[in-house]
């Protein structure tokens, strides 16, 4: 246990709250235990049951992100809000950058653009670092589109490959990546991206990677200038992925289609599915050009403390908590 890292962690959390409070963001405390968690194909909620005294039992899960409830509150008429609390994801590796329980910060703004949330992120990190007397982050951070990153680091022109699985498969083979029959376009994208591009992003300077192919949009709006891309952003610092943000989709019909697609992917992967959160869907029309971002606080603490592993900024590692052999 590293007490000095725990002290630093406590300060980081206080300064994050101070940053948002001073700008009149409302701190909301959304439920950790819900009936219908996010249904992203590659995130696994922890499931349990809520039992009433009369024995009536309801399926319940720990949230993988507070996103749904945050957006319902936005839709109910709050313009700026943040949520800071633990989130839970099963099936994540015990690899020094993940823990099944981690501290997540999410914040949202109405009537805003993706660049506003990037500005917030940059200013918040600079604010916290300055309060701690840490000068390691130079602002402004670099802003790079996914398309440009492919050009710069892999010398591949990504735009003509969009939605063309065959062309993407040829690129993978030419670069010694395997191509499995059931690999989707996204899977092939990641084989190149994770091998040749991601390891180089954020190394010299914190970098926002933005404008993702629309198949990776999830809850993001498609870009208004070019609908082949979605208004989504990820922040990389050193080798860590720190944050993932969207211009929030507010089209109920489109969201329903994407949820059904995600459900289908879960079924193909042999995973369980559950009903779509209808309250979330009907709240979407109340979103006024909202943008939001999810931010990994443990990872920021790692960067600020120089800790090599997430385990050093937690009171006890996942191994220690769950693995009998330790």
């Amino acid at each position: 246990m590293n007490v000095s890292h725990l002290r630093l962690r406590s300060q980081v959390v206080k300064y994050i709250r101070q940053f948002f409070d001073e700008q009149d963001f409302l701190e909301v405390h959304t439920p950790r235990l819900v009936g219908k968690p996010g249904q992203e194909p590659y995130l696994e909620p922890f499931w349990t049951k809520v039992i009433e005294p009369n024995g009536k039992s309801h399926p319940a899960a720990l949230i993988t992100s507070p996103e749904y409830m945050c957006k319902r509150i936005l839709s109910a008429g709050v313009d700026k809000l943040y949520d800071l609390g633990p989130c839970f994801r099963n099936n994540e590796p015990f690899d020094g950058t993940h823990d099944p329980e981690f501290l997540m910060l999410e914040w949202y703004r109405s009537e805003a653009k993706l660049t506003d949330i990037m500005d917030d992120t940059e200013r918040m990190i600079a604010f916290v670092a300055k309060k701690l007397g840490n000068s390691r982050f130079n602002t402004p951070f670099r802003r790079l589109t996914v398309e440009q990153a492919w050009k710069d680091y892999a010398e591949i022109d990504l735009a003509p490959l969009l939605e063309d699985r065959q062309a993407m498969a040829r690129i993978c083979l030419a670069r010694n990546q395997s191509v499995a029959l059931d690999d989707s376009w996204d899977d092939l994208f990641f084989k190149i991206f994770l091998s040749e591009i991601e390891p180089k992003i954020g190394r010299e300077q914190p970098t926002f990677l933005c404008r993702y192919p629309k198949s990776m949009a999830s809850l993001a709006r498609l870009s208004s200038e070019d609908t082949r891309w979605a208004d989504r952003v990820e922040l990389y610092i050193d080798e860590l992925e720190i944050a993932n943000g969207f211009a929030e989709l507010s089209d109920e019909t489109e969201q329903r289609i994407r949820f059904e697609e995600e459900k289908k992917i879960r079924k193909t992967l042999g995973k369980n599915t559950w009903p779509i959160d209808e309250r979330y869907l009907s709240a979407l029309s109340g979103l006024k050009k909202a943008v939001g971002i999810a931010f990994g606080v443990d990872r920021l603490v790692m960067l600020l403390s120089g800790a090599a592993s997430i385990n050093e900024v937690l009171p006890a590692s996942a191994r220690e908590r769950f693995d009998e052999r330790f």
Partner: protein
Amino acid sequence: MATPSDIKKGIVLRENGELWVVTEFQHVNPGKGAAFVRCRVKNAKTGKTLEKTIKMSESIDVVEVEYRNMQYLYHDATGYTFMDRDTYEQVTMSDDDVSDQAKFLKEGLELMISTHEGKPIALQLPRKMTFKVIETMPAVKGDTASGNVTKEAKTDGGFIIHVPIFISEGEDVIVNTDTAEYVERA
């Protein structure tokens, strides 16, 4: 067929007739994407290295290698020479092939070497090895107040590791050869 969860350092993958030795690997879950294993692999024939990313649900072809008991003899311009402890046959691996693991080699060290069709492919060092600290700063009273304080120490293997503040010169320490990190006092 094996799955990517079987991947570890030193295993050999066959793809399109070529053999690739895994020298490093890491599990990655990109945001909103499937789970992958990112490996650094080295072509067993040409020595070319590259990054390869494999989806967790894929099947992979792991080549059976022969593990031979070897003893490290010496290093010269041709590389590192080892002797098979059963057949007394000598094999040499180039500096590039041994790369980072070279620092752990001590004359007479007994280790395993994986071979494929008689050709040495990768070293399997003992997971924990003992080294002597030959140079480090003396501990100062009060240094331990803030928790996990470490300092640099040079070992008789010539490499530097981080050790707890209470370790002094001349002490033997156990080093994890996978991570090149201090484990405990010997």
